[in-house]
């Protein structure tokens, strides 16, 4: 049987059997004898001084085992770290502010949801009942939730000594924007708000910890994307030795970036389990998740684009107020800077770029990566501004794009901003999208619809993204506190079956299937003889995890290296057995043979057994058949594509509906198209959700007004049509698989496509920009105001005519 064909095949997922029969094992499904339950007392104020905490009533409540405040555990809990500290060269010479982040607040609370005490009880109900009995004397302080307002004089000081609440002012530039703008025919300015979002993985976070006082071994089960980094950071923060901590990510019910950090609760639950020498579990409620788990986006961008009147863009300038929330989450500083500023060239030949980002503390839930993480914000600015500019000069949005596209390239393209794109064919992706979508026919349909009183619009997004996180030396030079390589182990068992260990940590991406496909194809054994293990720091050596569309581009390549190593060793064993030189041995479809001597062939399983039986190994060759590899790429990968959204606006109600969505993505080579399509669908839904309905809203004093699933509009099946997806294939040379990464394309591309479509639908009324979400009320008001303005213009013109 040939298995080579599994690469590129729609292989059904090996993960599914457990998940469709109710046998998944998420953290809340795990049980231990004597398990205690932990609930947290959280601040109801956006900003307040803690005068006193009285836990006596709670401590005496039925079922309560213990109550801990931050003061009780200050030394053991430490301070949560900023995992990415921007370099002074990019922050105007000043080191960025990295204030303390105690897992349990001691002196002050800085956002609604900041934890102040932990109650441990015999049941979840007893714990949550007792939370209500903890008496905290708060002294409310003035709060600020808007990032721009927080930088103004007189704003409340959130962290002592952090002037203007700014953690940093980060700068990156290419060419000379101001000179380009001075020479330009046209300069267009727009304030572009990228609203705050709540990630909403369907499984909220959950943590269970167990401590063995005899061995000092602490085991933490947590719903995370980065078990190895959680272990490292836990050890650094608490002082509990790293080799005595085991972190396990069991089945994880979605992440989208918000399970990518060391969280306060991981430290709290782990340390309290150690303190009590009892297993302890904390399960986040959804309402708690909305305030205690990181949010995403929240940029206020002032953008400027300049160019000639016939469509050559010469520069882009952006200043951003990036809301960081009350504290720095683990990767927060990198998201609105590195992953935003370095993306502002898009797929265009802009020579002159200027980007400044103020990272601002506010009295809100910390903001960190949410699917796309910086790249959706950058793409939104670039793709919105290019259409804004095209409208301004009266040119077609596609013509302007084509005029400014970088020409197709396969071996690297240096960008003025200092990064090198790996490979790209932006014209090709646009052409493929237009094969599915008849642009001229749509324009006709749009005119006809308008005559019938229907408002139709089309929007494009010719996006690019930065994926395959990533070269450790580059990330480290830019401030990353950890390497971003990936590891793998391939362990061949004596019977020839294989266990693959990966440092990636999937939570829906189907790595067990994809990595099995690769292994099966390379070795030539069926997928059922392969097991993929992930998410357990005791079973696999240090790895990085799953985020930034890196698992295949980095983790997949680490697997390829280990496969090559075991195959190379197996060839030596087979050659020795056959009495030939290893160079003569061919390995194909699970069989070793020598060209032209067909009768001399040895199956994979026999070589595996021979490696362990070790009775006839070449001199000096160690027994066993196993390899470990660490892959650190030389560059990021740069997927791209063209997405097209068609929307219809109901003029009477303002209701804005997505009626058609075409996505052409180029993620390089694809191992499993079914899985890639699935990720693209989900990403599109999140991007469209942002454009049309999602928004996390705070009151000025720091209350989260969209504080439950009743208030925050997570999209439902009724909100979307089926999507039309397709691909072009421009492989990368950054890894031998040619794969670029596919986890975030949809989220990055979709929101500008939808908003561009809405502006297109209202352009004839004089509308040039809309801020997300495009809620019915906002759209209705926009239409009314635009028509009113239009009537006023006509009447003024008529008067002038008289």
């Amino acid at each position, binding site marked *: 049987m040939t298995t080579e064909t599994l690469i590129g095949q729609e292989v*059904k*997922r090996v*993960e*599914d*059997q*457990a*998940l*469709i*029969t*109710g*046998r*998944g*094992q*998420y953290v*809340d*499904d795990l*049980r231990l004898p004597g398990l205690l339950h932990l609930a947290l007392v959280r601040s109801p104020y956006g900003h307040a001084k803690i005068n006193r905490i009285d836990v006596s009533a709670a401590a005496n409540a039925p079922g309560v085992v213990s109550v801990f405040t931050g003061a009780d555990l200050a030394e053991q809990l430490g301070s949560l770290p900023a995992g990415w500290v921007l370099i002074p060269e990019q922050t105007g010479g000043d080191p960025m502010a990295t204030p303390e982040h105690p897992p349990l607040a001691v002196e002050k609370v800085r956002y609604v949801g900041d934890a102040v005490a932990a109650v441990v009880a015999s049941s979840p*109900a007893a714990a949550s009942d007792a939370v209500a009995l903890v008496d905290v004397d708060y002294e409310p302080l003035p709060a600020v939730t808007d990032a721009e307002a927080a930088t103004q004089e007189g704003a409340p000081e959130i962290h002592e000594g952090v002037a203007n609440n700014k953690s940093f002012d980060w700068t990156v530039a290419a060419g000379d924007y101001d000179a380009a703008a001075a020479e330009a025919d046209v300069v267009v300015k727009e304030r572009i708000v990228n609203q705050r979002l709540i990630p*909403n*993985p*369907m*499984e*909220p976070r959950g943590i269970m910890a167990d401590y063995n006082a005899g061995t000092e071994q602490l085991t933490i089960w947590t719903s995370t994307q980065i078990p190895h980094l959680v272990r490292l950071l836990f050890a650094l923060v608490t002082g509990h030795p790293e080799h005595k901590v085991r972190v396990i990510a069991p*089945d*994880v*019910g*979605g992440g*989208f970036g918000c399970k990518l950090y060391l969280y306060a609760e991981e430290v709290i639950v782990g340390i309290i389990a150690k303190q009590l020498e009892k297993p302890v579990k904390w399960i986040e*409620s*959804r*309402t708690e998740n909305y305030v205690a788990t990181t949010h995403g986006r929240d940029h206020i961008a002032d953008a400027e684009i300049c160019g000639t009147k016939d469509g050559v863009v010469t520069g882009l300038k952006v200043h951003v107020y990036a809301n960081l929330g009350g504290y720095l989450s683990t990767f927060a500083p990198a998201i609105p800077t590195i992953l935003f500023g370095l993306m502002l060239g898009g797929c265009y030949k802009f020579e002159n770029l200027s980007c400044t980002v103020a990272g601002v503390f506010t009295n809100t839930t910390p903001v960190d990566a949410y699917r796309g993480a910086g790249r959706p914000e950058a793409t939104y600015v670039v793709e919105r501004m290019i259409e804004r500019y095209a409208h301004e000069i009266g040119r077609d949005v596609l013509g302007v794009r084509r005029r400014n596209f970088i020409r197709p390239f396969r071996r690297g393209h240096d960008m003025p901003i200092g990064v090198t794109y790996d490979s790209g064919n932006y014209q090709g992706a646009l052409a493929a999208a237009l094969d599915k979508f008849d642009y001229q026919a749509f324009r006709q349909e749009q005119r006809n619809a308008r005559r019938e009183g229907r408002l139709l619009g089309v929007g494009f997004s010719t996006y690019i993204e930065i994926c395959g996180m990533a070269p450790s030396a580059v990330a480290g030079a830019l401030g990353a506190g950890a390497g971003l390589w990936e590891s793998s182990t391939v362990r061949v068992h004596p019977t020839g079956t294989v266990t693959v260990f990966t440092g990636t940590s999937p*939570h*829906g*991406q*189907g790595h067990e299937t994809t990595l099995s496909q690769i292994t099966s194809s390379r070795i030539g054994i069926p997928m059922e003889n392969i097991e993929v293990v992930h998410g357990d720091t005791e079973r696999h050596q240090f790895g990085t995890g799953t985020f930034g569309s890196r698992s295949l581009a980095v983790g997949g390549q680490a697997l390829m290296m280990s496969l090559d190593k075991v195959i190379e060793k197996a060839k030596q064993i087979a050659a020795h057995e056959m009495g030939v030189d290893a160079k003569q041995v061919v390995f194909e479809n699970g069989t070793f043979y020598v060209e032209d001597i067909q009768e001399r062939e040895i199956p994979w399983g026999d070589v595996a057994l021979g490696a362990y039986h070790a009775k006839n190994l070449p001199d000096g060759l160690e027994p066993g058949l196993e390899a470990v590899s660490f892959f650190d790429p030389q560059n990021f990968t740069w997927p791209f594509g063209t997405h097209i959204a068609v929307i219809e606006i109901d003029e009477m109600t303002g209701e804005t509906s997505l009626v058609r969505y075409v996505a052409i993505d180029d993620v390089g080579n694809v191992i499993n198209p*079914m*899985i890639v*399509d*699935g*990720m693209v*669908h*989900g*990403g*599109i*839904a*999140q991007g469209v959700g942002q454009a049309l309905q999602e928004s996390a809203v705070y009151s000025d004093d720091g209350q989260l007004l969209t504080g*439950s*699933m*009743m208030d925050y509009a*997570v999209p*439902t*099946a*009724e909100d*979307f049509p*089926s*999507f039309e997806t397709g691909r072009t294939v421009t492989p990368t040379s950054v890894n031998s698989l040619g794969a670029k990464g596919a986890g975030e394309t*949809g989220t990055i591309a979709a929101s500008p496509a939808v908003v561009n479509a809405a502006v297109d639908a209202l352009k004839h009324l004089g509308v040039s920009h809309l801020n997300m979400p495009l809620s019915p009320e906002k759209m209705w008001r926009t239409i009314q105001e635009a028509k009113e303005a239009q009537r006023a213009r006509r009447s003024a013109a008529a008067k002038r005519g008289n």
Partner: protein
Amino acid sequence: MNVDVTITINGTEHRLQVPPRTLLSQLLRDELDLTGTHVGCDTSSCGACTVLVDGNATKSCTMFAAQADGCSVTTVEGLASNGELHPIQEAFREKHGLQCGFCTPGMMITAVQILERNPSPSEEEIRSGLRGNLCRCTGYHNIVAAVQHAAAISGGD
């Protein structure tokens, strides 16, 4: 003071005594260890906990266990029979209707009801029927395809 609950789950009768505040979802998960029924919210919004109660798709976090006294409940663990997957389970696998899997049990139970009420629903009817169940991974695209596939392999059009 506990209350008596007699309840048939996936064909087996259970007699239990539980605190009155126990939700049906808690009874399933904590008393009977049927952890396939997931809890994804606290506002009856997400539908991950959906089970069939006397044949009706019901959010089990929104019902006291005591209210289910005398009822017959089907959970995800009861969908397959005699080692054979239910057509909706087959369809979710075949059409890649799940990624992280957390919403999947509730989503499949709701889909079972959609198809019981209408063996050959339109795409619009499927989307409308699924609106009480949230998924963040799939954009619903392949869930809709899975329900259509289940309809086809079950004999609907």
